[in-house]
């Protein structure tokens, strides 16, 4: 290929003289796929997306969920999404920024949703994840607990669970933990 290398060198010299534009890094395949996901989003009225860094940084965005039924009716929950350049080979990193009393979300905002970890597949997309998160609020389950106490209460005493959720959302203590108002 040495001959070709030399041809290339000549051309680069010519290009440099003819005010050529130097190549700029192309978007990563992950960014492009994410752009597709985002442009095809079809969200229910209960979910909103925003881009804190403006229209050209889609890799970091936020989703707010306002459940319209179930235990969490009336609350507002904010999630941050961080998408890797090798998306969708890797799932996005999702955290819940609103402190919530929930069996499947811990107090640090870690979320136990199978498609965010062990069951992620590249055919899934951002829409699927947002629906999955929405689903966590309409149907919290005590079988995949991250907040052990909340899961136990949901399993053994749903009335008490409902009371605790309302109390946390209104702003107040559940046990030793203080929750800020999110309704």
């Amino acid at each position: 290929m040495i001959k070709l290398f030399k041809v290339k060198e000549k051309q680069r010299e010519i290009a440099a003289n003819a005010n050529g534009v130097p190549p700029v890094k192309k978007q990563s395949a992950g960014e492009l796929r994410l752009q597709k996901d985002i442009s095809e989003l079809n969200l229910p009225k209960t979910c909103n997306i925003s881009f804190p860094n403006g229209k050209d940084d889609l890799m970091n965005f936020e989703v707010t969920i306002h459940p319209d039924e179930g235990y969490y009716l009336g609350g507002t929950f904010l999630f941050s999404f961080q998408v890797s350049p090798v998306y969708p080979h890797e799932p996005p990193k999702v955290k819940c920024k609103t402190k919530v009393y929930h069996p499947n979300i811990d107090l640090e905002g870690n979320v136990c949703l199978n498609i965010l970890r062990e069951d992620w597949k590249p055919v899934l997309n951002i829409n699927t994840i947002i629906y999955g998160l929405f689903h966590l609020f309409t149907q919290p389950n005590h079988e995949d607990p991250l907040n052990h106490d909340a899961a136990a209460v949901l399993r053994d005493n749903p009335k008490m669970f409902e009371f605790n959720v309302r109390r946390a959302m209104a702003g107040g203590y559940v046990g030793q933990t203080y929750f800020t108002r999110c309704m």
Partner: protein
Amino acid sequence: MAGSVVQSSRSRDLDKLLLRPGNLIGANFEPGSQLRDDLQQYVKVLVIGAGGLGCELLKDLALSGFRNLEVIDMDRIEVTNLNRQFLFRLEDVGKPKAEVAAKRVMERVSGVNILPHFCRIEDKEIEFYNDFHIIALGLDSIEARSYINSVACSFLEYDSDDNPLEETIKPMVDGGTEGFKGHARVILPGVTPCFECTIWLFPPQVKFPLCTLAETPRTAAHCIEYAHLIKWDEVHSGKSFDPDDSEHMKWVYSEALKRAELFGIPGVTYSLTQGVVKNIIPAIASTNAIISAACALETLKIVSGCSKTLSNYLTYNGAEGLHTKVTEFVKDKDCLVCGPGVLIELDSSITLQKFIDLLEDHPKLLLSKASVTHRGKNLYMQAPPVLEEMTRSNLGVPLFDLMGKVLKDVVHVTGVASKNDKKTSCLRKLRVAFKGVDGVTDMDTASGA
């Protein structure tokens, strides 16, 4: 005089390859002393990574007659590297790998010049990579491979018949090892599949369910991931975990140990903690040596044409007996990174709205509801409403202006494609070329921007 005797004996075997004609040669092979001189004096090779594979690659390339080498690596030497990264000594611990590796090979192989770069691959300008005739990759991360691949493919240009322009191809040779297994592959962007065409070859990292970690740990790895993913955040609110900070790693190890004791799980060690957190599989020196040898040989063959090259993916497995196999993968013709995309010629006065309308009638696209992005800038987004609103004002602006008045460049579009009455959502690469720009002749556009 002694020096010249050493020289001639050192290149004796190489001379047999480079100076004599043969039957199994590659295309355009021109044996002779000019070829040997070019290999030594003209050709520049970049080695990415100075770890287990990188050390081997530098040594192998230096002994294969290449004399202009550069190496880039962001890591410093750790004690645990010394068993296989044979260029490093105990007193080197803490020093940059690239610098020590370059120095050691130069000390041992006279005449070779290796320039080290102690930095991240993203820190270099794109043009830096264009200076090398070939790039050899000795990396352990899929992100880094994907990045270098996108850089190398960004130099690639196609002619109007969608054939790659040979002189714009930046060849890469990629090696990878995991324990007893390894691969070596040749990537000629536009000719053989690029890294992104076959990204599915890399198995996704194993991820345990968070609730298993939190509630029902069963293995040492579960305890380590609990400390790393859950306990760290609980204790260090806001401070992010740094896998390269040994204090952080020790903290995770001690927390993992506590948890393992609580659940009666054996097997948590410091090195396992590092392995799980950094997703490291124990490296084996001989696997690195075999894969590197294959990569160095392919580099020599591609550059000199002295033999046909690997086509195009070699796997090696030394776990049960020994098995090697070469598979010829095919490229994805619609690959967003290495594919040609659809060529579209436009008048420079065409607005973005008009361009979007044109895509709907374009016979190769039939793409409706297009969203358009150019070099990381979203020119127009159909959804969600918040982005549509932010980009709507671009619709009336000429595309030429939105693209920074370059004569030709790549844009990506997503939308709904209609084929035989079936509608599918798709993402396409387009090569846009402008005509009718004042003061620019066709000659200039043909030479390429």
